[in-house]
């Protein structure tokens, strides 16, 4: 009987989960509704999508996905930037939560009762356990968003170099397709590799700049999408592609510089914190020595 109760609970939970999943079916991917059709998912080649050591983690994530756990659209774009499988990400969050729960359970007997603080030991364990368990679940997306922001900045730096060379190659009479491939060649950073992979992995019926637009959409790097739109417009309207690239390059340089300026201003503001720390430590020295002197004198 004691075994049947948890089994019945698990069965009920799974059944409820499947019913809810059926009621709120996930929306089709945006690419499929944007007129690109079913060929699109194969279009973007993502190297190292699931590294071999993370395969068990991905299996956990896939199981969670089957049970209806999903990542948000924003997280999906951030994961695309890392070429990281959604299943791996889900698996890491679930395993992190399980690990946190295991640690909280293992550490519970060693937590002091807290009676000296007027708190019950159970409350302390409960709060600590909640923080540890919810940490990966709540903190994971935040960590991912911060890492993705840094990675987009890195991508823009590489894309800036790509645009500079692209403009020169176009001015030298190289075709738009050839110039795109050639401009992505000199770099070996991950951003150049992603551009090269996208250009290599394109399928018949799509132009190179359309593939770049998809890469920009997938990773949510707007500058890449805008370049593709500008090239497309220039080709259709008979304008100079090189001028479009140069305009895009100037715009990107300006955006990058403004971002760097804002970051520098933030850093200048943050410099006040260590200054305050230095003053506090300096005064603390006199405080400790002075209090001791007073205690000894009086």
């Amino acid at each position, binding site marked *: 009987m004691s075994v049947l109760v948890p089994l019945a609970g698990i069965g009920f939970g799974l059944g409820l989960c499947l019913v809810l999943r059926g009621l709120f079916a996930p929306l089709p991917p945006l690419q499929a509704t944007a007129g690109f059709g079913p060929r699109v998912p194969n279009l973007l080649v993502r190297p190292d999508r699931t*590294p071999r050591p993370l395969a068990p983690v991905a299996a956990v994530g896939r199981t969670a996905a089957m049970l209806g756990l999903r990542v948000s659209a924003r997280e999906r774009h951030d994961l695309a930037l890392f070429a990281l499988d959604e299943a791996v990400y889900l698996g890491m969050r679930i395993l*992190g939560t399980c690990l946190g729960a295991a640690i909280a359970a293992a550490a519970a007997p060693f937590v002091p009762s807290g009676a000296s603080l007027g708190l019950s030991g159970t409350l302390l364990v409960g709060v600590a356990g909640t923080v540890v368990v919810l940490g990966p679940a709540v903190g994971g997306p935040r960590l991912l968003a911060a890492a993705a922001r840094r990675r987009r900045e890195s991508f823009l730096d590489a894309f800036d*170099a790509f645009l500079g060379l692209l403009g020169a190659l176009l001015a030298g009479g190289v075709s738009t397709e050839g110039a795109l491939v050639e401009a992505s060649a000199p770099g070996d950073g991950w951003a150049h590799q992603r551009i090269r992979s996208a250009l290599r992995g394109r399928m018949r019926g799509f132009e190179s700049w359309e593939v770049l637009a998809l890469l920009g959409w997938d990773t949510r790097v707007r500058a890449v999408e805008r370049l593709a739109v500008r090239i497309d417009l220039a080709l259709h309207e008979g304008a100079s592609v090189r001028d479009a690239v140069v305009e895009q390059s100037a715009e990107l340089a300006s955006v990058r510089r403004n971002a760097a300026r804002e970051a520098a201003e933030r850093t200048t503001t943050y410099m006040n914190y*260590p*200054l305050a720390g*230095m003053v*506090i430590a300096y005064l603390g020295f006199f405080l400790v020595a002075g209090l001791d002197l007073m205690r000894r004198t009086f």
Partner: protein
Amino acid sequence: MSPGLAGVVAGIGCVLVAAGVRRVAVRLPRPPSPRQVSRRVWVRGGALPVVAASAVLLFTRSPLIAILAAGLAAALGAVARADRARREWVEMVEALAEWAESLAALRRVGRELGQAVAATAKEASGPLGRHLQQLAAEYPVDPVGALRRFQVRLADGYADRLVNLLAAGALGRAGRLGDALGIQVATMRADVEAIRQAESNRSGERSQGRQIAGLAVLTLVPLAVVSRDFTRVFAEGDGRLWLGVLGAVFIACIWAIALMGRPRRLRRCIARRDGAGG
């Protein structure tokens, strides 16, 4: 499960999660700049803390104060090195911009790239002088190889961009090279201007940091020497702990200022196959 084992498990878990997030797309290492691998820098960076610690240990016989003195010397050294690195980097970017401007001007009047490189190398001085003379000597034999080696020696994001353009020009693939170089020069000059503006804005914070550090050394050292009674608390159990904590906070704050003062260099995009070693 003991707390120690729980800590080990937690640590391994954190490392796995961090590795999972960060290590997916492997980032190739960048080639070190000559300055980064210079043994002299290590000797200079390590000698001062060792000397400071030895002198303080000899005088006070207190290992804790010796460690704090070493930490303080290392932190002040880090601040000085960060200042010097920033100054040298800005000078190099300005020199690169000037060189690229000269190249662009020569290209616009119809000079070949090799002639332009040779002409600008003759006049070169400052941080780029030696590298440009080497480039001019190697260029006639193997233009693209010489440019890539020049790129490796400079180890800078702006140099990468310029060399990419020049290599395309040397191979006859790039057109209107003067205009393309002019755009790069404008970008470099605007970036340097932004860096100078940021430095000017934070000069007040730097000056305050130097004043506080100077004030602390100038007041605390004589006080410790003259009034042993006042500082006697720091020779005992709890007082020693307080001294360690306050000293560590002070040193950590100086380190933080040094870290914040480092310039944000343009990221590189050098090719490994060109002998960069990355």
